């Protein structure tokens, strides 16, 4: 199984979970979503308990892991890199913390009954498969799920049941993010998911190892192909500075890891020049401290520039300096120290980007009424208009600067030109322009041969056949072989051996010696008996030169020899003996009328011209 991300857009159907009781939220009118929610769990397609291996490509793509490992009877192994697991744990921990610290007085589940759901107001009544919507997992479940993960490093080769070898490669998108190569001896499939060619903090993408793929499965492209990350970072800084200069506060709903590192780095360079040195930056998350510290210790997973800093030694990320100089302060939540230190105007980074839970809910309530303040959306996962819906009417300015560093279509076409896979397989959405911009034919994958696309819950046969298997020969068997050179550079030898197959590995072993007469009079065990070996007839090769053959026949007393050419070879007619020798490329037939002596004689004459081994 490749990745197990969690589609959290269904949370947009719920009201925000406030940290304090909000009479406003409890009296909200209905809101109509533009698109219906489609959290579809096609479990009938696949019994998840039969999954042997899950390959994780980055920490965003493992958020559903506890649901699989803890609820489905899954007994397999999960492979992921260390930063993926550590930061994935932080994201899950933050999620669980956000949900658990505001327990609901009551929980309702009867509404999920189809009869009841039908009567609910839109959009709930239109939501699909609400019965599959789950409660958030718990911390013990997270821990249990994570314990099933086996850590791997880039370029490490992992044998899966002898059938295939899998290798994670750097994908350049996030700390520890990986693309995977799945290969057998003769086939190679690359799984490219969430990759980036931009120079941000993670180690650069390894493109070279993706070459010579039979199939390249391509997914996790940028969600906002029209937004160039550089331009968006500029936009982010401009809006931030403009708000703060006018005395307003800036709220940045974000995940606790990922783009936030790059944003802090940009701000580090920008704040002095923009005259923002005295403006405090707050990072509020239950895992803020761990996230900032983890980022500094994963040196081997960072880009080259940051790696070299470690040897100086300097912290690879400049947010260390921001913390040291008190420009950046981090808190687990708004309670406690934060309320003492809080100064305005300020910039707050906090979760969750859906604006439905987490400390961000509090700041939206606090700052939403003033037009001086700005909320800047940088995470592309949620529609910002829908995220803002329960907070309307809103006076604060809203700016949408989605920063998605994953591959865009121009980069994809460059990558495919470079890597040249035989076939590309990708989701259907990538093979046509976005529905809202149908004229933008540049916003789709353009490759030759055209990419094979798949839809949700579609079964696709990958376009290659396994034609060869690799077989090993035991040394003693190899010793016994006597190769015969039939053409320069090509030698042949016959092998008689026993093929031993275990764990998808095939080994040729020497055949057992002829059975010794039983030493005892115990009953022979038929089942254990090695296969009976008959003496083998030699194999023949070579071609028969017709002139010489005719001469030989004549020498041996066959007078009226006639040769006829046929489409496949020749027919030698011995009229007197009423015999026919049919010589073709890969067979020779001697047809004579019940005269075995003659047949044997002729056979021996034919054999003279052929090599035996």
């Amino acid at each position, binding site marked *: 199984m490749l990745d197990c991300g969690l589609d959290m857009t269904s949370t947009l159907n719920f009201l925000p979970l406030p940290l304090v009781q909000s009479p406003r939220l409890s009296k909200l009118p209905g809101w109509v979503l533009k698109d219906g929610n489609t959290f579809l769990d096609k479990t009938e397609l696949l019994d998840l308990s039969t999954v042997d291996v899950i390959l994780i490509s980055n920490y965003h793509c493992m958020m559903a892991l506890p649901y699989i490992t803890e609820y489905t009877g899954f007994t397999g192994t999960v492979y992921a890199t260390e930063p993926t697991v550590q930061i994935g744990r932080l994201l899950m921990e933050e999620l669980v913390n956000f949900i658990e610290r505001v327990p609901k007085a009551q929980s309702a589940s009867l509404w999920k009954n189809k009869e009841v759901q039908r009567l609910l107001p839109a959009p709930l009544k239109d939501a699909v498969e609400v019965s599959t919507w789950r409660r958030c997992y718990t911390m013990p479940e997270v821990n249990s799920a994570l314990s099933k993960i086996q850590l791997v490093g880039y370029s490490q080769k992992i044998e899966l049941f002898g059938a295939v070898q899998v290798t994670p490669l750097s994908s350049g998108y996030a700390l520890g993010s990986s693309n995977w190569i799945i290969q057998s001896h003769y086939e190679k499939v690359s799984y490219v998911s969430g990759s980036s060619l931009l120079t941000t903090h993670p180690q650069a993408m390894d493109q070279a190892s993706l070459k010579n793929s039979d199939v390249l499965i391509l997914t996790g492209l940028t969600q906002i192909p*029209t*937004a*160039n990350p550089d*331009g*968006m*970072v*500029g*936009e982010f*800084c*401009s*809006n931030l*500075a*403009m708000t703060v*200069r*006018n005395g307003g506060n800036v709220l940045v709903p974000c995940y606790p890891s990922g783009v936030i590192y790059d944003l802090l780095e*940009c701000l580090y*360079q*920008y704040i*002095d*020049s*923009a*005259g923002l040195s005295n403006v405090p930056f707050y990072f509020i998350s239950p895992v803020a401290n761990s996230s900032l510290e983890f980022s500094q210790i994963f040196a081997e997973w960072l880009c080259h520039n940051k790696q070299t800093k470690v040897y100086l030694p300097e912290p690879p990320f400049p947010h260390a300096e921001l913390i040291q100089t008190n420009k950046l302060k981090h808190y687990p939540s708004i309670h406690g120290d934060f309320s003492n230190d809080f100064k305005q105007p300020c910039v707050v980074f906090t979760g969750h980007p859906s604006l439905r839970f987490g400390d961000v809910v509090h700041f939206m309530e606090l700052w939403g009424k003033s037009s001086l303040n700005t909320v800047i959306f940088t995470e592309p996962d949620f529609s910002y208009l829908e995220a803002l819906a329960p907070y309307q009417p809103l006076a604060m300015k809203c700016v949408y*600067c989605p920063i998605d560093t994953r591959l865009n279509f121009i980069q994809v076409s460059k990558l495919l030109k470079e890597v040249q896979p035989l076939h590309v397989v990708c989701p259907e959405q990538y093979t046509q322009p976005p529905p809202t*911009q149908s*004229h*933008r*034919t*540049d916003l789709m994958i353009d490759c030759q041969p055209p990419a094979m696309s798949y839809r949700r819950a579609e079964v696709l046969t990958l376009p290659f056949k396994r034609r060869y298997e690799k077989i090993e020969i035991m040394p003693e068997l190899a010793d016994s072989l006597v190769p015969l050179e039939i053409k320069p550079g090509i030698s042949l030898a016959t092998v008689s051996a026993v093929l031993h197959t275990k764990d998808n590995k095939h080994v040729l072993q020497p055949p057992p010696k002829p059975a010794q007469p039983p030493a005892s009079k115990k009953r022979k065990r038929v089942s254990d008996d090695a296969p009976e070996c008959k003496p083998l007839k030699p194999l023949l090769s070579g071609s028969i030169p017709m002139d010489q053959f005719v001469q030989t026949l004549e020498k041996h007393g066959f007078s009226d020899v006639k040769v006829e050419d046929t489409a496949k070879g020749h027919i030698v007619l011995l009229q007197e003996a009423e015999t026919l020798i049919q010589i073709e490329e890969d067979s020779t037939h001697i047809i004579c009328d019940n005269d075995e002596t003659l047949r044997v004689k002729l056979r021996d004459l034919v054999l003279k011209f052929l090599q035996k081994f």
Partner: protein
Amino acid sequence: MLPCYGDALPLSLFLTFFYQKKTRCIMDRECSQLLPSVCAVLADSRQLVADDTFLEKFLDWFKTLTETESSLLLLQENPCLTELITCVLKLKDPSSSTLSFILRLTGIFAASESCFQYLQQRELLISLFGEVGPLSSALWEEASVRSGWVQGVHSMVQHQSALHFLCSCGAIDVIFTLQGDPSLFVASAANQLLVHVLTFSLQSFQTKPENIKDCDWPICAQKLIVHIEESLKSNSASRIKQSLKLLTSVFGCCHDLWTEVLWSRLSERIVYLLEEEPVHAGHSLVDLFLSMARSPVFSCPECSLWTSVTCALEHLNPAQVGRLAVGVLKLQECPQAVKIQALSVLLQPMDCVLKAASQPLEYPGLLNRSVNDSATVETLLSCRSSCASLLCQTLTHLEELQYLTCLPVDLPHIPLLQSVVTILQFCIGLATPASCLGNKISRILIGCFRVQRSALDILGALSHWESPSVFIGSVFDILLAYLKSPDTSPTVLKKSFQATLKWLVSLSEAPSSKDHWQQTEQFLRDLFLVLQKRLCSPYWEVRDSALEFLTLLVKHLREKEWFRQVLFSSEVPKLTEDLLEDPESYVRASAVTAMGQLSFLTHLISKKPGVENGNVKEKSIVAQLKEILSTDSEGFPRRAVISVFIDWLREGHPDVLKDTEQFVSSVLQAVNSDLDWEVKAGGLELAEVFSAQILGRLGLAACPYAAVLSSATRSTHLSESLQIFCQVKLFEFLFGALCDCDRPVAQKACDILIALKAELCDESSLKEGTSAGLSTEARGIAWLEETLRRWSSCAKPCPRGDADEAGSQDPNGVLLVLRTVDLEGLHRSLNRSSDHIEKSPQSLLQDILATVGTLEENEADCY
């Protein structure tokens, strides 16, 4: 440059003055004496010349010499020169640079016919330029020798004897070969030489012959024309190009009647070249036609040239023909039909783009009929490598047309505007393609900065046409899209600002501006929102462009009430003020300039009751700028401040008018201690404006229509002016600047002082001064020296009390100093370049000898 003496003024320069005699272009005695040793050095093959630039200077000197005096006399009086040529010819292994020099030197002498004969008699010319000379030596492989040979011949061909010599010694064939020389310099010089030979040989051939075949053209010219014809008929593209280039130069530099005869002989062949598939020498043909079209010889509408031009417009590749089309459209004398066709050529790619987008065409396309096969243009547009360059070329050519004073043909400006907007829409993915071509164009153009820049240029240029509201709306929309988009590159953003400015200025000046008022006001509101964000950009280029745009916008629209309203309802003025503290000096400089403009408006706004003026602290702006002038560590912001102050003084800024003397005095004080010469030059300009204003205010300006003042009034006014100048310490500043180590500063100070002297020290005051016993004799030279020293120390920043004391000038003393110092002499000295002494030929000759001397010494050291 004047030397700087630190504290002491260079009085000697003021009082005693050398007048350097002007460098004369004749061989003087010193040079004649030095010349033989120099020639000996040059003729010595062992004396390798390390630096050959002096050979060039040497040649330049001889060129000037031969222009002013007889070359023959020069050779006769200096036999060492002829010996030099002979010696070098005899050398077994001369250096290539020496040989090249000799070839060129001989050419210069041989330009005079008498000298030519003189050299011919000594068989020097045939040995140098004939087949036996360098031509046949191994040194001919050196490009410098070939180049020297061509240049020598070129100098020589100034008389018929030289032409005969060329034809008889086979040199002309050598030049033909050199046309295709691997060295581009040699090839180009050979081509120019052929042009010269042809035009020179036909100079006397002014009348049109009846029959070209019977005409009695000089042999040399005939040979050349046969060569051109043969080249044009050859299959070699390079030979064809060489000949076309030659013809281009001939038609470009010579407008005699014989050129028409030449054309009639070659035109058929050239039309044949045009009809070939594919056309190989497209660019060269375009050059040829453009050069001919500019010649008055071919201006007649019936001339066959126009048929060829029409043919070229039809047959040449659209990527090549644009230049010809725009050249034709710029011509005064050209048949209208050709012009219409040329315009169609330029409009065709635009037409294709317009059709490729799905906009409902309310107006007909750009073209009534297609000139070329539109398939060719479409193929070029659908190919990634040619699309952007064709569009950029076309847009640039069409933009050029916008600036012509009178366009000879009707330009369909509305559809053109539409197509430009469509291109800009394509470039950011806003256009909806309507055809397969549209899809291709869209894919190619998205994110193409080159096309964006060219399209924005022409969009700005199209603003001077009157356009209906609906199109103005689409222009505003596309401009806003570019200004808003975070993906707009800084250079494209700058172009977007420029185009926006042009449209806003045009609309504000248009007679129908009231019709678009609402539309424009809404656009301005959106624009200022974008501008606010751009002023906060993390990229300094963007902040800088935004400020420059704001400055120009305010400058052009500050009289418009609607503009002021929108401006001051935005955050832009406050953000601009914040940028005075930007860490980037360019941005600070632009912010200073912008604030300089804005501050005119803040006064207007603050005068009005009810308009809140909380955004800009207009009271402190002068103080802020003065602080930048005296404390900013970078030059750009300080230069910007001084030019703002000059504008303020010129335009009568209210803050300046409050107390002009105090303002000028404090600015001059700050500028005095500045090390940047441009800031100082700015300060001097401020002083100049100020002094002119003071003199003008008191009726002393040099205005021809001013009422003549009585001498008594004039005298009173003069002493008043003088008093004011003394108060602001103008003379301390000017005399301080006069000793500045940067020449432009000293020159400017000198100019101002001379002008002031002319005003203040007229005859009457002179008389008064003398009568009052105010002469140098009376006060003595020591007094003068002391005064100047005191002023100098006073001009420097010093504790307040001391400055006051030192600055209390005696107006009579000032007049005396002005009269005594030889400002005019100083002015002449300052105008002379700093290397005027080193430039003399004598110095050159000495340098040559000195260089060789060192070489010899080094050689000796080696042993």
